[in-house]
């Protein structure tokens, strides 16, 4: 391509300092937009994982039998055995009813050894004895089908048939809170991206006006020679495009580096939260959208600003 076809031939935009400034500004915007998107995607992933793990779990809690009765040395062994037999029978009845309930995928009575494992962090080696001697509640863990419509109230109604003082912990509240929090953070991320887009447009417009000011003498010559507005606009569009490529490359690179450093500094092998949060490769494609959007906004803003300023030259 001959030199006079170069975008820099008549208006030396690439040699202008503000052109470097525009690249830096766009890079910074791409950097913030990409990190915001990474954060949003990771939040969605974490919340999805947590929400999924909580979604189908319900625990039915049957309070422990009267502690005074268990410790009453006067109570005969027959009476205790009878009480234990009745508890076992009502437990079996409840398990059968729960298993027959539509939408319940499985019913698991938490055994003493499983309970012992649960309390081992507090009691250590004494956990087995603690479980046997303390009035711990009986737990029944339910796994619900993904598409179930059964409610916490319905399960409670079933449980209270055999155990009037039964309680049901459905984790729904936690799940709802997580979903609500994720939604709020999603809106926050979206708002940040919109603000970044607006700020980008303002900064590009300002940089374009500054550059038009420094190149005013040449542009007035082109105007006098009858150069079509599209000729000047196109030079600025290409100028913004190149600044975008430069800014996008270093903005994305810097964002990737920052994300890696954050993951390296905060990663804990015992907690797999980051494993759940790491974006899938299909989501990585989404990370290019803010960069692409920033580039398009910059090009459009530069072209629009130049066109408007050229039109304003045409005084009445």
């Amino acid at each position, binding site marked *: 391509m001959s030199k006079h076809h170069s975008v820099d031939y008549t208006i030396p935009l690439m040699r202008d300092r503000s052109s470097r400034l525009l690249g830096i500004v766009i890079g910074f915007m791409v950097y913030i937009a990409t990190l915001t998107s990474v954060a949003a995607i990771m939040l969605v992933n974490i919340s999805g994982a947590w929400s999924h793990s909580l979604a189908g779990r319900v625990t039915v809690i049957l309070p422990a039998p009267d502690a005074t009765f268990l410790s009453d040395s006067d109570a005969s062994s027959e009476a205790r055995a009878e009480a234990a037999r009745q508890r076992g029978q009502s437990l079996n009845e409840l398990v059968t009813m729960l298993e027959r309930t539509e939408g319940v995928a499985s019913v698991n009575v938490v055994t003493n050894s499983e309970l012992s494992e649960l309390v081992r962090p507090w009691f250590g080696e004494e956990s087995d004895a603690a479980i046997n001697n303390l009035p711990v509640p009986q737990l029944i863990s339910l796994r619900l089908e993904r598409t179930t419509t059964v409610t916490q109230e319905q399960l409670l109604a079933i449980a209270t048939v055999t155990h009037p003082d039964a309680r049901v912990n459905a984790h729904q509240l936690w799940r709802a809170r997580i979903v609500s929090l994720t939604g709020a953070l999603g809106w926050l991320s979206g708002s940040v991206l919109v603000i970044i887009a607006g700020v980008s447009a303002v900064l590009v417009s300002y940089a374009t006006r500054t550059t038009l000011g420094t190149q005013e003498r040449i542009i007035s*010559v082109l105007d*006098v*020679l009858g150069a079509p507005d599209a000729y000047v606009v196109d030079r600025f569009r290409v100028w913004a495009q190149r600044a975008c490529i430069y800014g996008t490359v270093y903005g994305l690179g810097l964002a990737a580096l920052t994300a890696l450093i954050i993951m390296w500094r905060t990663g804990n092998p015992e907690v797999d939260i980051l494993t759940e949060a790491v974006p899938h490769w299909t989501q990585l494609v989404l990370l290019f959208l803010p960069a692409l959007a920033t580039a398009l906004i910059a090009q459009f803003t530069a072209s629009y600003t130049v066109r408007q300023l050229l039109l304003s030259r*045409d005084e009445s």
Partner: protein
Amino acid sequence: MSVDFLNVSIRYGTDREVLKGVTFALAEGAICYLTGDSGSGKTSLIRSMFLAKHPFSGVIRLFDEDVTQLSRAQKLEMRREIGIVFQDFRLIDHLNVYDNIALPLRLRNESEKAIAQQMEQALELLRLTDQRYAFPPTLSGGQQQLVAIARAVIHTPSLVLADEPTGNVDIHMAERIMQIFHRFPKLFKSTVVIATHSYSLIRDHPAPIVQLANGRAEVRQISDLR
């Protein structure tokens, strides 16, 4: 008519009118001077002729077309039929002489071969062949003005406007520049309008005069002047 002003008034903002009811006409291939004291409105009249200043009232016709109602795109297109020379040259410093002069042709997307042919003639006519690769800041004021004139006429415009073209050059170069302008009507059939307040140059190169005074224009001959 090449240039036709009918009752044209020009004002800036809400200030009083710089020109009031100016009426004159120039035939194709005519040459004339635009004279008047400083602030008499010479530059405003020149600007309205290359469509950079919209008249407050009246009608301006260029090449038999009313230009007061043109869109910006149409004005730019019309400007490509006009060659303009300024007192301060207005060359592009980072382009050499050849590229400065060739610019109007490149804006018209002419082929490099056609450009080269026209360039040779223009460089020869203005005796700039040796300076073709020089950059404007390295040239004298007179040479820069010759480059500006070459750029203004390289595309053989129908109308050539010059706003104080000898204002920044010595008397010998001014003489040469006037000779060059007086050749254009014959060479290109261009209508030439030269704004100047140098009566000595007008006497040496006579042509009709549009004299501006008190916002009015009056067509005179050199013999009418003191």
